[in-house]
């Protein structure tokens, strides 16, 4: 059975989740990436959206404005979450956001933020942007439009948005960092074997 999270998300919704679990989201999902993080954390500007118990998506979508002025979500996939590592711990603390969706892993600061404030980071499969767009029922608002299409905070009503693969859980476990350690451990013997066969300079 699908495990579905619904906004507003409570601490107890997340406590039993472990890295590698697959969940889906129903409710509100707000796009939020580089400049929005910078404005809140470094420039001290107030976010125009209340994220308490909410979910953000590291994403810069393609949005089309229809003739009646309504926005249509065309294509929305995740962007590299690691770019937000610098800001995310403070961002979680200040906003009370519970679910951060993006691509690839995040680092130790975000891990700390997830443990201290009971939040999780999840991976939506990168590049699957039309699949994601079909899970957006409506764009309810657009804030900070001066940032241009990719960086605007698009407030989306979503239904069973996923798959979302938990990559940092509330216990501070980090799926991608664990995987990277495995990749790095494997690297040396593989390279030794390859290098023995490519000594072309003799």
């Amino acid at each position, binding site marked *: 059975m699908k495990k579905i999270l619904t906004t507003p998300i409570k601490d107890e919704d997340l406590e039993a989740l472990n890295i590698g679990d697959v969940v889906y989201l129903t409710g509100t999902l707000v796009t939020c990436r580089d400049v929005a993080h910078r404005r809140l954390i470094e420039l001290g500007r107030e976010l125009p959206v209340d994220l308490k118990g909410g979910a953000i998506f590291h994403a*810069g979508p*393609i949005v089309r404005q229809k003739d009646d002025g309504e926005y249509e979500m065309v294509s929305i996939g995740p962007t*590299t979450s690691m770019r937000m590592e610098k800001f995310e711990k403070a961002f979680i603390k200040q906003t009370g956001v519970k679910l951060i969706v993006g691509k*690839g892993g995040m680092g130790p600061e975000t891990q700390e933020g997830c443990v201290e404030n009971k939040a999780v980071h999840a*991976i939506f499969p*990168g590049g699957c*942007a039309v699949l994601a767009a079909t899970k957006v029922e409506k764009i309810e608002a657009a804030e900070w439009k001066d940032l241009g299409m990719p960086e605007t905070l698009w407030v989306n009503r979503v239904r069973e948005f996923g798959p979302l693969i938990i990559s940092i859980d509330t216990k501070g476990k980090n799926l991608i960092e664990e995987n990277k350690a495995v990749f790095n451990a494997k690297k040396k013997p593989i*390279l030794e074997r390859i290098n023995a066969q*490519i000594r072309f300079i003799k």
Partner: protein
Amino acid sequence: MDKEAAVQDLTQVMSKFTSYIGKRLPTDVTAKLGELRSQEVNFLAKEVYESMRQNQEAADTLDRPSCQDTGVIQYFLNAGANFPLLGELEDILLNATLGATKEGPLRHNAVETFVEKNTGTNTGSKIPWLDWEIVPNDDSVTIDVYMAGGGCTLPGAATVLMPGQGYEGVAEFVFDVITSRGVNACPPLLVGVGVSTSAETAARLSKKAILRPVTSRHSNDNAALMEQLMTDGLNELGLGPQGLTGNASVMGVNIESSARHPSTIGVAVSTGCWAHRRGKIKINADMSYEVISHQGFKL
């Protein structure tokens, strides 16, 4: 056809082709992804491959860009010296980018540097980026269109090794880039490696390497061996789709090379994500064209 009509005609073809390649993957990439999907056994990896498959199907049906990051538009031209619109091609491709941005629609991905404003048109200083090679005694032009997305561009790296480090140093450099930064670039990746004389020559060749078909091989036996060894070796790392672990890390490794200074080995890596959006089109002197990258292409 008079010149003005020919310019209009070609602008429209290139505009439609640029938009098209954002929606449907090239035939070689689709085939390779199908192969990797069918061989996968890891639970999360299978889940992701299935999402990828559904996504490409939805993009095709709904006629939308399959990934929201439609990249910075780059055109790599192999232009015959006698192609009738040689001098007009730069303007044609600029207008094709403007057209594709509206038609696609493409995401606005050109931020003017130092001004730090998104131009909103996918055009800006030297963007779309053009890379030229002139072919003597030829009157056609072959154009590779590439959507350089942010995620797959980020791992890009170049360095200059000392000959003592040898080709072993090249392999180490490639593996370091892929294990440290490739994970975030939407694997399984197509890895392009430039082996050359300096940083910028290697970098250019590394990008040209990912324009080659996924399963193609370098014409030199040693280079082809290295492509195969690195493909197998990177797959043994088992990055899996999105770095979630799995059977494969890469769709392939392609090397492009040039001669080098005796004292240097320039090496560079460019990566293409699984959604490797590139297209190859040949345009003849009479403006008839042939799409090489996508079987069954229809405008």
